[in-house]
């Protein structure tokens, strides 16, 4: 069975457009008839990933692969990378500046939520080169 691939560009600094990729992906997943909890978890992972790239990486791209038994979400950016991954995974830790926080973002829940709502998450990051976060969600 051939994989369905979706790809969405995410623009840096675009807080208004963030969520667009999530909306489009959700509609596709609903058309495919995936269970609603799977759709919801994928939506949360996607939205948090989008916001992360908007805030920290001047954008990037979100890639989705849908197979019969799992969804793979890949957030790919060429931003500054994550120097301290352990710290970044702590709830409430954020390097977002005051402007971003004043908009209601940067609460330090992005990566923890992505880990929580996916079945597996891998982060491949290099300082100065960029970050790729890969999440898998099993379709029960």
């Amino acid at each position, binding site marked *: *069975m*051939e994989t*369905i691939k979706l790809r969405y560009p995410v623009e840096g600094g675009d807080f208004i457009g963030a*969520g667009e990729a*999530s*909306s489009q992906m*959700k*509609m*596709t997943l*609903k*058309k*495919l*008839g*995936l269970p*609603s*909890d799977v*759709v*919801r978890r994928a*939506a*949360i992972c*996607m*939205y*948090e990933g989008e916001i992360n790239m908007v805030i920290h990486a001047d954008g990037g791209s979100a890639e989705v692969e*849908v197979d*019969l038994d799992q969804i793979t979400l890949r957030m790919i950016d060429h931003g500054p990378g994550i120097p301290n991954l352990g710290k970044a995974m702590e709830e409430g830790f954020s390097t977002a500046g005051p402007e971003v926080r004043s908009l209601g973002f940067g609460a330090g829940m992005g990566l923890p*939520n992505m880990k929580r709502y996916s079945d597996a998450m891998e982060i491949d990051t290099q300082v100065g080169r960029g970050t790729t976060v890969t999440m898998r969600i099993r*379709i029960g």
Partner: protein
Amino acid sequence: MEHSVHIDLARCRGCTTCIKNCPTEAIRVRDGQAAILADRCIDCGSCIRVCPHRAIHPAVEPLKGMERFACRVAVPDPALYGQFGQMADIGQILAGIKQLGFQYIFESARSAELLARHARGKCEGPLPRISSSCPAVLRLIRLRFPHLIDHVEPVMLPMEFAAIQARRAVAEETGLAPEEIGVFAIVPCAAKVTAVRRPEGLAQPVLDGAFSIQELCLELVRTMAQDQGEHLDTAAGSSGIFTAFAGGESALRGERASLAVDGIRNVIEMLEEIEDGRQSGVEFLELWACTQGCVGGCLNVENPYVARLHLSALAAALPGEGGGSMGADQEWDDVTFTRTLQYSPAFRLDEDRAAAMEKYRRIDVLAEQLPGLHCGACGAPNCRAFAEDVVQGRASEGDCIFFQQEENQPAGLPPSFLRREDQ
């Protein structure tokens, strides 16, 4: 599924206005006329508002439909009170309704107050709790946001509660059998007309029919002009009357962290956000398909903003909560749904996931070949929806004007679509 939204084929010219404005992509033009995909329609009334030929109507009973009952009860929506400006206060309107042939009136505004009092604490779903007051929104959630079904408060509509109360009280007073009493809602929108016939949260209908505020207004203006001097008091207070517009329900409920969202596109956007786990600080959500809430329903006469102003003026003299006249305050057991909302997967491509994926791929391939102009000439709202229609067997490739010229080859654009640099 029986919808109240109907297309008058004698008037429909087959233009593409409605298909473009339908928030659930539920309309297509076929053989030169609009047709509704019943499983996708939520009766929001968007098409009724935009149709330039006035060809789309909600199928509402004419007022004389009440004559099949000797004993009649009116259940007016509070939006009705905002339609008359300085011409009439609520008491005169209620007296007018009686003169039209209703022996009893049970006001939705009053039952909204009673429901609010009893709904509190009955709703233990995840946050934010979503109000169940707009039937178009309930249907939207069932079709497109199944994960949010648990957020909906399982509380019946004020008009449904009023109807149950009315039938009980009037049967007791008159000695008639409950089915001999005709209980009719006076409604501001197509969604409530549908809800009367087929309630979202109740296993059985509790109303016998629905009349539109529009039709009633015309009759009422005539009746009230020959004022008989009778004056009735509203059973509702200002808080119940304010549920006719967005924000009123939150105020009535004393909800603190609440949002009132109006307009179907805004509602969809909000539901998307909730689904993505955003808006975590919100506890209670009012969602209204129409602008400004029920005063914006397509069966009203007055402009929604003006109606809201009228309602505020009318309610200024009333206490916050009304009294229990007309039997509405008697004991009652349960105000909750008797049927749970079920996911209705109208957008799913196929029951079988592998088949759905296969169809999705074919849609993708076809959509790539389409011009992406969303011209609507094929009868679908956009190229993607057309590709889906083809794969689902609802349309054929030849329906696209760009496919027609050369079989299976997208042809060049007609002159009107060409940009200057392409010519």
